[in-house]
């Protein structure tokens, strides 16, 4: 198939940036979206033009590096997948496709479609861990039995890949789904209870400092999340936050 691409090009963080039109032809429906961009880039290099910069790494939907905003949706039109898992069979011959970076005040553009998401790392530095040193002398793993339902729910929260689609999809650029996934994982496990108060307070504080917006319960984050992280996590984090605030 033949497609028209309207791609956000921005030289660096200080550049204003804008959409540029490109044509790609002979696109196979079996190609992944990023393979289609590979073909475009090969073409641009051969024409002595600068290739489009975009983030990607594992190309199997787990590393969380790819981050394209396609036709107004984080990770494009398909559900439950990352950009690298999107295949061209989702599009039709003659389509025009808009490709932009994930946009948020806390995600400054580095170049073209690449944004800086270290703000998400900094929230994790503030409390996304259980303070246990490596020693070889921690108690036996089976000395902490955990109800299967809780373990499975904690796992579901823990499958967040930190891509930032929730932030990009939210009209307020809120990171509540991302933060609540980590808070929930530990809130559901006995190991996480000991530091629960400080964790939620510190992570939320850092989230606010990074310039992420507030949550107004629109639920767009859950719809666009490639890993199906549920809004229940946000509700759980709000409970944890309230509990911690009353205590602290």
């Amino acid at each position, binding site marked *: 198939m033949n497609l028209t691409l309207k791609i956000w090009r921005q030289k660096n963080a200080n550049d204003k940036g804008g959409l540029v039109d490109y044509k790609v032809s002979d696109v196979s429906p079996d190609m992944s979206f990023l393979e289609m961009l590979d073909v475009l880039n090969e073409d641009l290099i051969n024409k002595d033009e*600068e290739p489009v*910069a975009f983030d990607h790494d594992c190309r199997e939907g787990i590393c969380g590096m790819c981050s394209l905003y396609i036709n107004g949706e984080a990770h494009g039109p398909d559900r439950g997948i990352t950009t690298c898992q999107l295949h061209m069979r989702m599009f039709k011959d003659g389509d025009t496709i808009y490709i932009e970076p994930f946009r948020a005040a806390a995600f400054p553009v580095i170049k073209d479609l690449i944004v800086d998401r270290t703000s998400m*790392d900094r929230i994790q*530095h503030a409390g996304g*861990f259980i303070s246990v040193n*490596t020693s070889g002398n921690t108690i036996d*793993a089976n000395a902490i039995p955990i109800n299967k339902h809780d373990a499975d729910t*904690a796992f579901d929260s823990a499958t967040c890949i930190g891509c930032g689609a929730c932030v990009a999809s939210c009209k307020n650029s809120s990171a509540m789904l991302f933060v609540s996934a980590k808070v929930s994982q530990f809130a559901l496990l006995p*190991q996480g209870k000991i530091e629960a108060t400080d964790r939620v307070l510190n992570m939320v504080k850092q989230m606010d400092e990074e310039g992420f917006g507030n949550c107004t319960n629109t639920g767009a984050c859950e719809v666009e999340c490639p890993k199906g992280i549920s809004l229940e996590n946000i509700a759980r984090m709000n409970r944890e936050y309230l509990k911690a605030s009353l205590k602290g």
Partner: protein
Amino acid sequence: MALDSKIPKGPIADKWTNYKNHINLVNPANKRNIDVIVVGTGLAGGSAAATLAELGYNVKAFCFQDSPRRAHSIAAQGGINAAKNYQGDGDSTYRLFYDTVKGGDYRSREANVYRLAEVSANIIDQCVAQGVPFAREYGGLLDNRSFGGVLVSRTFYAAGQTGQQLLLGAYSAMNRQIGRGKIKMYNRHEMLDVVVVNGKARGIITRNLITGEIERHSAHAVVLGTGGYGNVFFLSTNAMGSNVTAAWKAHKRGAYFANPCYTQIHPTCIPVSGDHQSKLTLMSESLRNDGRIWVPKHMKDVEAIRNRTLMPKDLKEEDRDYYLERRYPAFGNLVPRDVASRAAKERCDAGFGVNATGEAVFLDFASAIQRYGKEQATVRHLDVNDADLVKKLGQEVVKNKYGNLFQMYEKIVDQDPYNTPMMIYPAVHYTMGGIWVDYNLMTTVPGLYCIGEANFSDHGANRLGASALMQGLADGYFVLPYTIGDYLADDIRTGKIPTDSKEFDEAEKNVRDQINHLINNKGTHSVDHFHKKLGKIMWNKVGMARNVQGLTEAIQEIKELRAEFWKDVKVPGTNDEYNDELAKAGRVADYLELGELFAKDALHREESCGGHFREDAVELDGEQKGEAKRDDEHFAYVAAWEYKGEPSDAVLHKEELEFKDIELKQRSYK
């Protein structure tokens, strides 16, 4: 230089304990004056960085991704082995040790493997304490499953995302130390050289991938946890950015490169669909617990399936060839990866491949769905003879176990694996070879350590499933933090390492020269053009089956391709900006050297062992006819190559392998 593996004396079960009791320690106050660089933040690098920082060292950690959480360990699916014997099925440290040495086709170092098995149980305890949500049984205890090449269930898992959960555990441990200021994290930085001062590794040169800035970083020791080099084949299950550059630069600075030809071709990957393909996707080995592998028995059925006049699920049982169950009745579909891959190639080479390219076999869940469905119907007191109900119940069980993998398959191939068998084919997955290290995980450059997949030590010529995660975390959490202390104990009076020495000047110039050359070359072909060509040579001549003629040709072709690359590569843009093509060019330049050494190593090893299969070394008769033939008399050694300017000039050093605790014998899975 003669290789000294520094294996401690004494009985194998006591070596590690005795070793730990007698090494030098660094007191907590002195640790604050010692800097350690860790390159790579996967399971090995991430766990090492966190643990070293917990101990009190000042750690600088580097990764090329935008966050340490994205290292490719994240993509490991199936699980992690540990000799916990929670299932009471006869597992023990010795048995895990034995299985790993046997699975590695007797080409790994006994003492290292025993230590690995010994600390394996600690890993599970540590990860659970960190909040890693492993799969559990209804009673609340940890669940296990079985993997290829073993007869016990010792694999701990978190659905099909075990690597992700373990890496996020290590990442969380790192985050705690980053928050405390004990780890200084450098994201989007690529290591481009090691700096050796007075014979010791004292720093690295990096390029900031956003600004292009070349930076000097010094430390008292340097640790590489930079993963494998499977991308030398262009197509592999590795991430796009996975590369050999850090390891290769270390090699050029004096670190010997061991057994480069030991590569794991994983049997269950999604087949190649076309020339546009950028990477291959693994379907976890755990699927072989329940999936049965087959091709049709008769050519007419193969053709009918290829041109879609016959649906695979409609082919009668008696017309199917479950070739693994036929050839290896004892292990069946759970033979080790190298054996399963070669068996698939054998059937496809004989013309029985089931897709248009002729390079695919079926992995079928129909009988597992039946089995689970009947079990569920019985448990719930429903009608076991209701075919639709049984199928539905069975599909639910399979979905619970492998849902994310089935979804991944469906998105890529556009077929529903619940209703038609998956098509799979072997693909490059893991590299057992790597930088040579001694028992301390130190390379032949003093102060330069290598951990995880980047080193060579634990998996011999073939790695068993769920052992990569075990090794990465064992090295980083439980081994390196001890062994590096013994070395650093001599550095408590050294003080900060200056970065204005002539050695840093020389290394930085070296890096800048290469970058300038690449940018100014202005050739006619892109980096990918050369990488794809290299990949084709490697896959066709240095792939699953190797012979003298092919390897000799490969060496020559890679040499020519390398010359052409340097003459004709085209790298757009400049060096002082984000420039992915420039980063790729540097990586491919190193692959073009490694590829040749890889083929040279494969040519010199005139035996078949593990992932290295030589067509001129097979059993000619008896029960094992057609199986790989190892030659212990001549090749029971580690081939460690010393860099001498060109890959073809590399000098071979042999570390003879001694098997005192396990009898050397032919692997049989029949």
